[in-house]
């Protein structure tokens, strides 16, 4: 296979995208920050009032004064309560909105990926980005962005309040800052890769369990149980090693940060005592600053936690944004085809420059003919099929319909002219009707049933409990591979292109069913041009012409009888198959 990896955005691009995302949501974000700032200010009242009380009591005061101070404190608590209520709600709604926008944009980008990218990259990587990566950033986007802002604001305000209360004393609370900076930097530098390893280890473990569960039958049949248990054990060992690594990092971080928080109030106390003996500050002021120093613990830990998370999320975000960096593979022109005549001339194609898979293929499809393409695996049959269906722009030469290159047609038009049907079938989550209407949103139930009739599928669909409205796909009614293939073919009937490229479309069915299905398809497709890339020789026998592709070239082309008479490769194969 010619797998290519999808791009991953670099740090600068991730930064640009994140900034743009925040700018686009500047208003709600500002509201969140303002509300939280006010809430944080209200939260600073406690230590300040207590410090005042301590001084007042020392100097002798009255019940009225106490009542007033406590009343002010209660008011501050009430104000903080109301502010927190709205601030938190706004912050979470903001997070939900931004995340919803992000994932919706991502999926829209994915569904608009160029045809050639989709065909070549496979869907595994994309599924991973749609599920795992989107999942991984959700925590950071939904809660992290607001929390980082809020904890930063709270830290700044608390320190500022301490300085306003008693600038001389407040200096002492900064004694822990060097420890924070050293330990914090040390930790954050190492944390992201360590946590990534951890989440990768768990993803592997989940993958192993998923495989074991999905493949229970094979596990049983081939006695793979011991191997599977060994695999789980190995995954757990790796997860454990990763956990131990992050645990060791935290074993430095936690006591480091904690000791900064232990030292700060003691330093304030000692320095404050010195200043008190100087007479430059009051006991109450020192009390207030000590309490502020203790209050910083919460927001500082929160900030560290979210910075950590944000780093991990950034790598997933890079993969999500990366999908948007795929370049377009074609520009639609405005010419429309004169007729339904498909002609390939001098078509070359290379997945990697210099390694041509097709070496200048000329093929003139007769309108309405059935052409079978046969040949050994790896001969370039499928690549040729994709060229004829306009999936890839050829590296050299052209494929034109009615005089217009296929790759210059807008996609919606292209599909009305040529369609590619592969052996891959996928039943989408939804009803059978929804699965069919992909091809034609306007089709009514009668049209759907007619299409099913054409592929011999009407009977079993009508026998289903809910008929066309039966839920199928992951979690719904399970269709057999043959039924799934029939649904796919019925979609084609609805799409109604004049030329069809069938790439081994019937190979997954058992031989008799394939033949059966091809017959019903034949009846429907009369008058259409059909290119059938075939495994089975009866397909070739039924065709008007047969092209034998070998080594990226058309080795033989002609009717079945002509080729048999020519006694080339095709004839030999036919005879061995015919021995029966």
């Amino acid at each position, binding site marked *: *296979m010619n797998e290519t990896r999808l791009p991953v955005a670099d740090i600068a691009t991730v930064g640009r995208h994140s900034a743009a995302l925040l700018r686009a949501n500047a208003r709600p974000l500002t509201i969140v920050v303002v509300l939280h700032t006010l809430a944080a200010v209200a939260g600073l009242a406690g230590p300040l009032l207590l410090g005042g009380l301590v001084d007042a*009591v020392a100097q002798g005061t009255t019940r009225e004064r106490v009542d007033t101070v406590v009343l002010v404190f209660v008011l501050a608590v009430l104000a903080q309560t109301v502010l927190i209520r709205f601030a938190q709600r706004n912050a979470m*709604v903001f997070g939900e909105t931004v995340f919803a926008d992000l994932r919706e944009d991502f999926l829209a980008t994915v569904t608009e990926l160029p045809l050639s990218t989709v*065909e070549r990259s496979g869907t595994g990587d994309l599924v991973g980005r749609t599920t795992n990566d989107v999942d991984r950033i959700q925590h950071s986007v939904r809660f992290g962005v607001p929390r980082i802002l809020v904890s930063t604001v709270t830290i700044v305000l608390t320190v500022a309040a301490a300085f306003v209360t008693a600038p001389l004393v407040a200096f002492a609370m900064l004694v822990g800052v060097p420890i924070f900076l050293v330990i914090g930097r040390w930790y954050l530098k190492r944390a992201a890769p360590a946590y990534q390893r951890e989440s990768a280890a768990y993803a592997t473990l989940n993958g192993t369990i998923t495989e*074991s569960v999905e493949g229970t039958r094979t596990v049983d049949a081939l006695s793979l149980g011991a191997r599977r248990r060994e695999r789980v054990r190995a995954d757990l060992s790796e997860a454990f090693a990763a956990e131990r690594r992050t645990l060791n990092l935290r074993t430095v971080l936690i006591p480091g940060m904690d000791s900064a928080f232990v030292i700060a109030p003691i330093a304030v106390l000692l320095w404050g005592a010195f200043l008190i003996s100087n007479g430059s500050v009051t006991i109450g002021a020192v009390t207030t600053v000590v309490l502020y120093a203790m209050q910083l613990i919460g927001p500082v830990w929160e900030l560290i936690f979210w910075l950590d998370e944000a780093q991990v999320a950034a790598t997933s975000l890079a993969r999500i944004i990366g999908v948007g960096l795929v370049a377009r593979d074609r520009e639609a022109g405005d010419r429309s085809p004169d007729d339904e005549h498909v002609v390939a001339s001098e078509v070359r194609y290379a997945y990697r420059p210099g390694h041509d898979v097709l070496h200048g293929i000329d093929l003139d499809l007769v309108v309405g003919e059935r052409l079978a393409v*046969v040949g*050994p695996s790896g001969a370039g049959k499928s690549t040729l099929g994709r060229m004829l269906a306009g999936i890839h722009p050829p590296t050299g030469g052209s494929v034109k319909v009615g005089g217009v290159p296929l790759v210059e047609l807008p996609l919606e038009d292209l599909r009305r002219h040529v369609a590619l049907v592969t052996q891959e079938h*996928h039943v989408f989550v939804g009803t059978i009707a929804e699965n069919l209407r992909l091809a034609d949103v306007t089709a009514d139930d009668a049209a759907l049933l007619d299409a099913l009739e054409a592929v011999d599928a009407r009977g079993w669909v009508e026998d289903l409990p809910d008929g066309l409205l039966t839920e199928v796909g992951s*979690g719904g009614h399970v269709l057999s591979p043959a039924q799934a293939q029939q649904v796919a073919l019925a979609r084609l009937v609805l799409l109604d292109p004049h030329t069809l490229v069938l790439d081994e479309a019937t190979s997954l069915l058992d031989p008799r069913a394939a033949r059966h299905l091809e017959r019903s398809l034949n009846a429907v497709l009369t008058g259409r041009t059909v290119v059938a890339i075939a495994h089975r020789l009866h397909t070739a026998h039924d065709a008007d012409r047969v092209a034998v592709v070998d080594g990226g070239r058309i080795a033989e082309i002609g009717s079945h009888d002509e080729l048999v008479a020519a006694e080339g490769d095709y004839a030999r194969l036919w005879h061995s198959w015919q021995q029966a």
Partner: protein
Amino acid sequence: MLGNVRSLPLPDPGRPPLTSPAAYLAWQARRQRGVLAAAVTCGILTFLAQALMPYVLGHALDEGLEKGLGPELLRWAGIMLAAGVVQVVASAFGHRFDVQNWLRAAFGTSQLVGDKVSRSGDRVTEDIPTGEVVATVATDAMRVGEFFFNAARLIGSLVAYAAVAVLMLRTSVTLGLVVVVGLPAVAAILGLLVRPLHRRQSAQREASGRLTTLGADTVSGLRILRGIGGEGVFTDRYRRQSQAVREAGVRVATTQSYLDALQVLLPGLFVALVLWLGAVRAVDGSITPGQLVTFYGYAAFLTWPMQNLTQTLQITTRAVVSVRKIIRVLQVVPATGATPGTADAPAPGAALVDEASGLTLPGDRVVALVSAHPDDSARVATRLGRFDDVADRETPVRLGGVLVHDIDKDELRHRVVVAEATPHLFSGVLRGELDVRDRATDEEILAALHVADAQDVLDSTPGGLDGDLPEKGRSLSGGQRQRVALARALLTEAEHLVLVEPTSAVDAHTEARIAERLTAARRGRSTLVVTASPLVLDHVDEVVVLRDDQVVLHGTHRELLAGTGEDHDHYRAVVGRTLTEDPVPAGPTHDHTEEVTR
């Protein structure tokens, strides 16, 4: 050493009681009681040291601060530092023990589930959806871990709470009672909000799970969407569900924001009450300003154990729900081999006989099984492998005269291997995924790949035999996957090898090559191939024809083609991919001999 982490996973995950979630959790707690005790000790020390801080601060204010930087203050500062050091050390080690508690419980559970699914056969997915089984490892095991992680914090909180209550009661009965009664009341009120919050959170999780399914579904079918159209329909569908998730999130946010606000309001009012009571006493001189600060400090500190209590409630609820799901998976009874074998296995070379159909594999021949209905022949072939003891009770299969049901399952699986039509490929290094018995040399592996005509897989897997095969062999084409699975089955070197439709997805050139090499490679060893392809039938020693679940004919392909009689006609109709326009009739057969042999 203290705080040293014992390597996981443990050699034996043990056998937990499956009677109730409580029994399961208690069993797990006993298994890790040492770590649990260490964590709880550290937790208590951490919280006590912290609870001591306001006390020390109050004394420092009263006895030291006024006199300036004197010996009194230094003494209290020293005590504060000592308490701080205890707290730092205890919480650092405590965290290590907490994490060990988490890992022991979570990994133990994951291992139990992993073991179960490796032994249960497909019974596990009959009873429980795949996603839920996977979730027991991905989510539920973590929740059990979280329960044990939280244990030290909970008990530390409770002890500190009791200590503070005693200290306050000693200073002032009123203040003490406010703490003793007030805080549990606050915790209970907050607890009330937990349930609706949970409900809304799980509603959002469910909506979000559906969204992930829709996303994965759209992307998995992307080739089709891009080829046929309908991207718009799918992005709209995703957008709608995404907005539903967002709205569910907004509902969570509403409840959560009330909870957050209450977590400010209730402790705030509690602190205000303590502050007022204390200040009044300070004014009339019954307590010192330092004690006032101490009370304030206690009140502020106590909000922490209170939050832990509320959280414990959530964590425990979640853990119990998760354990129920885990128990459900662990209770699954395997489809075969639930009880140990009772009979001695027969000597090598014994014949394998399906009594219901009359199919006999003598032990040294390559046989093909043909039926007009591929499902029928596949069913008979599958039966030979013993996949369901309950369902197969009516259709006995004997190896050397012994019922396969009575033979030790591992022994049977090594001697009789059934490779089904839709085998699963697993991720891993290609060599290991091919040679699942770990006994072949590279030459033997390459030879098996040659027989299966799958050498091209070495090119499409970077690194060849040392390269990685992705999950489900996704990097391979359908035909390649089938050929890899065939090579894998061949490498088991089973005494009886049963292959169901092994070449259905390969082209005619390839099928012809495989048929020739396969029969040569297995010559003299019992092999059954379920197929109707003449390219294969022409090479086997014997063809067996199944009709209405009974063996009606056997002989070489040519003999059967040449024979006369209704069953021979039937055979010709089934295998002759005739050139007529009629599909193979299911009822009365027509004579196609002429067309087939012309």
